[in-house]
């Protein structure tokens, strides 16, 4: 709401104008969700199955090319979707501009680190190093 009693509601509503963005965010969130509909059930089912086969067999499962590719894709889609979703949550609930900007940046860094960590782990198992 307006900070001053002298600012008109029209001024508040117009604000800084429409930013002409948001649609690509909307599309990215929907498309990553679509990918996750397929990838998450595969991931949960396979990871539970692999976990029951013992440590070496589980490593071998991750090291197979198809599984390694799908694992990285799952992490990519999931963390990307998470970044987009958390962005909306932060924008919804955090009003203070500085705190909001800091959290939005942290959100990007945090999900990027998680994604890189998954990729490196899979690569390490795949290459056997």
């Amino acid at each position, binding site marked *: 709401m307006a900070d001053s009693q002298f600012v008109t509601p029209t001024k508040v*509503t117009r*604000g800084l104008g429409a930013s*002409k963005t*948001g*649609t690509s965010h*909307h599309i990215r969130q929907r498309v990553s969700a679509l990918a996750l509909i397929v990838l998450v059930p595969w991931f949960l089912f396979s990871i539970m199955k692999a976990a029951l086969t013992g440590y070496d067999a589980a490593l071998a499962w991750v090291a197979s090319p198809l599984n390694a590719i799908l694992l990285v894709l799952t992490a990519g889609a999931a963390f990307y979707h998470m970044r987009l979703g958390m962005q909306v949550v932060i924008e*919804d*609930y*955090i009003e203070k501009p500085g705190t909001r900007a800091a959290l939005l940046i942290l959100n990007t860094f945090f999900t990027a680190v998680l994604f890189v960590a998954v990729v490196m782990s899979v690569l390490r198992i795949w290459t056997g190093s």
Partner: protein
Amino acid sequence: MVQLTLPQNSKVQKGKTWPKPQGATNLREFRIYRYSPEEKTNPRWDTYWVDMDRAGTMILDVLFYIKNNIDPTLAFRRSCREGVCGSCAMNIAGRNTIACTKGFDDLPGGVITISPLPNQPVVRDLIPDLTNFYAQHAYVQPFLKTDSPTPEKEWRQSEEDRTQLDGLYECILCASCSTSCPSYWWNGDKYLGPAALLQAYRWLIDSRDEATGERLDALEDPFKLYRCHTIMNCAQVCPKGLNPAKAIAKIKHMMVERIS
């Protein structure tokens, strides 16, 4: 951080219990939000006992019963008393609606609370200040915009195109939907809200309107449009049975369509 509790001076306190009407056999308890800016005190819940046999059939009748027989200081807005003007929108038993079409039969059991529409400044008692809401409606420019020479008689439209406006033009701007939307509570200064966006869509799909792209431009914004998270409270409460969430989804669809 968004404010999750009411500020100190908005916390509603226990108010007065008004005497029961004499000789009534069918009494019902109503707790009504009272606030007066001159008193410099917090709002309060006043308790009224209403003789349901003498109070008519609708909640607006109950308010008139109270004003005429118990407490003439109770303030509320009303005009048409038949669901056309949208003036008497308020929160009845925890749900936004218009008092004139909310019948006794629809009420849940127990004490009925009546308060002003949520999350708007209160002018007095059940009267919210809706100037921000009206400014948002004005923002979507709810009128026909054309550049072609105006026809001699009228702008024509096929019957099929006209049916596209059904479920949209009926909106009476009562603000029940916008003030029931959590996203509007948190970001009501930047998010246009379901009512304004329903009207925006009503003009976006009007076959006679020539400003579709310009209208989409004015809406394309993470806050003005994309704060709708399909919570659907708007469609739940609309006293005219409209579905603003669906209209907003269609606006998003148009946004995607124009870049793909």
